[in-house]
């Protein structure tokens, strides 16, 4: 079968699941089966379609649509094939998971949930294969709307307000994308992407179109500073939908940036890539810093999506830098890293959301301070969550590590042979990635530790039992994928590299040889995850042997001693909570947290600003005084106050000033 026939079968099953679930809304068990079963079948055929494209050739199909101005063209190339594969794989797991999880919502409109859930998946698949600007926007809107209804499904105040913000941001983003497409359509003379590729706009119009697309798709992806909706909307949706939203929907934003920047506009100018790289670095560090302060598990995971989108954008940005500077090695490595991390993040973030969902399903709370000790009552969920936590913390040899390793290597390759600006920005981005990695480790030790380790901190946590079989099965599939994508790097890296080269239209780069992977040649660096895994597992035998050597005559292992509490009776209240665990970071990075609060306020300020405009228009005052004298006084005043902040009194701060001044002078004199 051709890839399009498989895709058509998949979409047919999606439609059946969508309407079957809606029509059987009265009989909720039937609706669950319809939605989950249809979704699973659709996803399996979607996976097959994605695979067949990755293994075979790209295909285009042109169906006469109802509108003369917009041809209904679908195109399955390497990039959209990869996206279809990722979307379908995660949809399959979510569908399996939903068989049990959706029971939680009995009596609250399961039919409607199945309808929106399957519509959401189908529209995502259609967005990535659409090859016409009009249909792209239609499916993009469909995706936003379907997910909006999933966000507000709980109907409580929090969900509705989260949904409203999501709705606003999504539509502002769509408008920006639309204008960008119109600019390109002006140059191309039609709405077909194939014409966009053939007749590209000039540098200025192209740059404006790219910036608009970056804003629109960036808002969808949740990059900082357009992330405000994400930590509200994702936690509000049901967990299997959160997994899809965080796992795949935000990747549509990355897909869009790639589609416009690389595929349609052909790479453009150097600063496009640098902008994406810088935004990525900022998103990754701030995303994880905000995640650390959370004690709501789903909000914590949502902020981590911001972080990981940042890491993906670093890879994609480096790829764009390489494309603009015509350096195939940098371009392929960057895009390879970005796409690999895109796939990996879909897998481990999906896994973590499903794990969080399983815990919420049993405990009915999202607050980590009320969990604890679940590793004993929910061992399977705990093991799967641990694998996800290790993968997202980039612990070798799991999948998150491999893609971050390639991100480092891409940044390194760019830093070696770039212009001055590139040589300056890429090592700083690599340092930001290191900081992100360390913070992510802290955050996931906290998340896993507070949820699954130590003493139970509530009655429900004490009485919890393992999640139902379909939920565990879904999580196990994704946990296995985390391991396979890490250990299988020597097989997967070349496949990703093929996708990257076909998107870029560049010559392939040597990235794998036997059991090792490398960034374009063995002389720079090599990595072998299978070898790492063998060593890690094999070397476990040594400490076990040391311990066994002296086991003769030793009394057996005993778990009785209460933890030391200075002579008092230890209880769960004494242990470190999610809040206090991250307290040092909140203290050390305090200025960043006030910024976060201000971002929230700025939305209100915007509303206030409009009021102020109206009232100012009515006022008649001595304009000269108000516009010149008062601001001037205020400026001097505030400048004085700012200057005071420089004199903090700390010796090391002054040392930093000297270092900074020295650095600046060096740069000025020598460049």
């Amino acid at each position: 079968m051709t890839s399009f026939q498989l895709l058509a079968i998949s979409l047919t099953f999606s439609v059946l699941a969508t309407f079957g679930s809606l029509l059987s809304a009265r009989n909720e068990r039937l609706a669950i089966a319809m939605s989950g079963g249809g979704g699973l079948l659709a996803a399996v055929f979607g996976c097959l379609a994605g695979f067949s494209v990755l293994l075979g050739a790209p295909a285009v199909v042109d169906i006469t649509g109802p509108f003369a101005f917009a041809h209904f063209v679908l195109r399955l190339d390497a990039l959209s094939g990869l996206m279809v594969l990722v979307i379908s794989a995660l949809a399959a797991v979510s569908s399996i998971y939903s068989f049990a999880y959706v029971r939680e919502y009995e009596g609250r409109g399961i039919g409607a949930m199945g309808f929106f859930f399957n519509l959401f998946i189908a529209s995502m698949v259609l967005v990535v294969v659409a090859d016409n600007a009009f249909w792209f926007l239609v499916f993009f809107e469909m995706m936003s709307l379907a997910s909006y209804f999933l966000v507000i499904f709980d109907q409580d105040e929090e969900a509705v307000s989260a949904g409203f913000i999501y709705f606003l941001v999504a539509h502002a983003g769509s408008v920006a994308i639309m204008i960008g497409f119109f600019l390109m359509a002006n140059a191309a003379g039609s709405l077909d992407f194939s014409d966009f590729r053939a007749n590209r706009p000039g540098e200025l119009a192209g740059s404006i179109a790219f910036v608009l697309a970056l804003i629109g798709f960036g808002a969808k992806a949740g990059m900082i500073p357009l992330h405000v909706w994400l930590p509200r909307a994702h936690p509000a949706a049901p967990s299997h939908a959160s997994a899809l939203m965080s796992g795949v929907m935000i990747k549509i934003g990355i897909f869009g940036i790639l589609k416009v920047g690389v595929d349609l506009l052909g790479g453009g100018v150097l600063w496009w890539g640098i902008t994406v790289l810088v935004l990525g670095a900022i998103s990754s560090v701030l995303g994880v810093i905000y995640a650390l302060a959370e004690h709501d598990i789903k909000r914590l995971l949502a902020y981590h999506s911001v972080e990981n989108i940042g890491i993906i954008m670093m890879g994609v940005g480096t790829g764009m830098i390489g494309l603009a500077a015509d350096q195939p090695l940098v371009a392929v490595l960057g895009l390879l890293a970005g796409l690999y991390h895109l796939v990996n993040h879909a897998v481990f973030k999906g896994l973590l959301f499903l794990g969080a969902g399983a815990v919420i399903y049993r405990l009915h709370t999202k607050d980590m301070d009320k969990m604890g000790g679940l590793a004993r009552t929910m061992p399977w969920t705990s093991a799967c969550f641990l694998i996800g936590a290790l993968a997202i913390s980039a612990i070798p040899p799991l999948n998150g590590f491999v893609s971050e390793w390639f991100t480092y290597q891409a940044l390194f390759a760019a830093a070696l042979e770039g212009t001055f600006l590139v040589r300056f920005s890429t090592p700083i981005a690599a340092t930001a990635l290191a900081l992100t990695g360390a913070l992510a480790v802290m955050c996931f030790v906290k998340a896993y530790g507070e949820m699954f380790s130590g003493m139970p901190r509530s009655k429900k946590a004490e009485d919890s039992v393992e999640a139902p079989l379909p939920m565990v099965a879904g999580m196990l599939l994704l946990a296995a994928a985390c391991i396979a994508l890490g250990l299988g790097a020597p097989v997967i890296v070349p496949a990703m590299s093929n996708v990257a080269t076909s998107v870029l239209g560049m010559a392939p780069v040597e990235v794998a040889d036997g059991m090792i992977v490398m960034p374009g040649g063995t002389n720079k660096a090599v990595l072998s995850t299978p070898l790492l895994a063998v060593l890690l597992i094999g070397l476990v035998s040594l400490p076990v042997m040391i311990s066994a050597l002296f086991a003769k005559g030793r009394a057996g292992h005993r778990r009785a001693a209460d933890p030391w509490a200075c002579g008092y009776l230890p209880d769960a209240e004494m242990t470190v909570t999610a809040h206090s665990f991250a307290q040092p970071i909140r203290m050390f990075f305090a200025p960043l947290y006030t910024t976060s609060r201000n971002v929230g306020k700025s939305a209100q300020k915007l509303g206030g600003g409009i009021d102020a405009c109206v009232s100012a228009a009515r006022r008649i005052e001595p304009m000269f005084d108000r516009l010149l004298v008062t601001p001037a006084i205020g400026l001097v005043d505030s400048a004085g106050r700012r200057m005071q902040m420089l004199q903090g009194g700390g010796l090391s701060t002054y040392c930093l000033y000297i270092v900074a001044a020295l650095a600046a002078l060096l740069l000025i004199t020598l460049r």
Partner: protein
Amino acid sequence: MPTLSQFLIALLQALVLLAVAPLFTGFLRAMRARMHTRCGPSVLQDYRDIVKLLKRQDMQPPAAGFAFRFMPIVMVATLLTITMALPVVTRATPIAGLGDMITVIYLFAVVRFFFSLSGLDSGSSFAGIGASRELTLGVLVEPTLVLSILVAALLAGTTDIGGIGAAISSGHVSSLGAVFLAGVAFAFACYFELGKLPYDMAEAEQELQEGPLTEYSGPSLALLKIAMGLKQLLILAFLFAVFLPFGSATDMGILSVVIGLVVFIIKIAVVALILGVVENSVARARFRLTPRHSWSGLGIASLGFVFYLVGL
């Protein structure tokens, strides 16, 4: 992929370092006593402690789960993997597929992950605070570590630890100022990682009952004692391999390997002496003021980066 002889050499290196780790910590103890003008224990005291602990019963708090139980084993295994990846006596890494700087730094993160997780898992509040501190120190140190080693890697044109060491020792780097500053910053970051005074935060004995170690006993504690010593040795070996590779064996000849071994022992002894002097002449830094210290480390690394950019 490594050949059998490469693999065996790496394994030998791991076993030897594992065996001498208590000797290293014992040496530090003995020297500390001398500086206090005490008689102090013999350098072999840590071996006696470990053997004694290995014979005792293993106890754990009722709340603790598998993370607490298996952490010592995971920690030793991961550290041994790092040992097989790092060039110690030789200039090149024993196993090529592991000796990348990013891989080694992230393998240290594995140790940190499980070490702190066991602290939370024990259900003890001391261990929990120690875990939080351990991870916070990691956050403060990691940017300095990566930026400084990145400067050296950029100058050498490779991220392979052996490759960087070879470039630095042969003088094939264009800006010596940058290498020097990066080396200073890297050494500073390593000192943080060693957990010695004044940065003895996570396993602070007097303050936190040794942090995540609080609840360990018997063979688990013995393994952890070995692991802590091995970790310190490895951090020093990492520093030597990248910034002070002078004297290590460039080929596999018996003579050069022996010279490399002797040079390594001398380097360790000198550093141990410096460590002893520093550790015995300062008080503990206040935890909430540590970022000031770590930021200055990042400042030095940034200056090294600027020197690299302008080619000094």
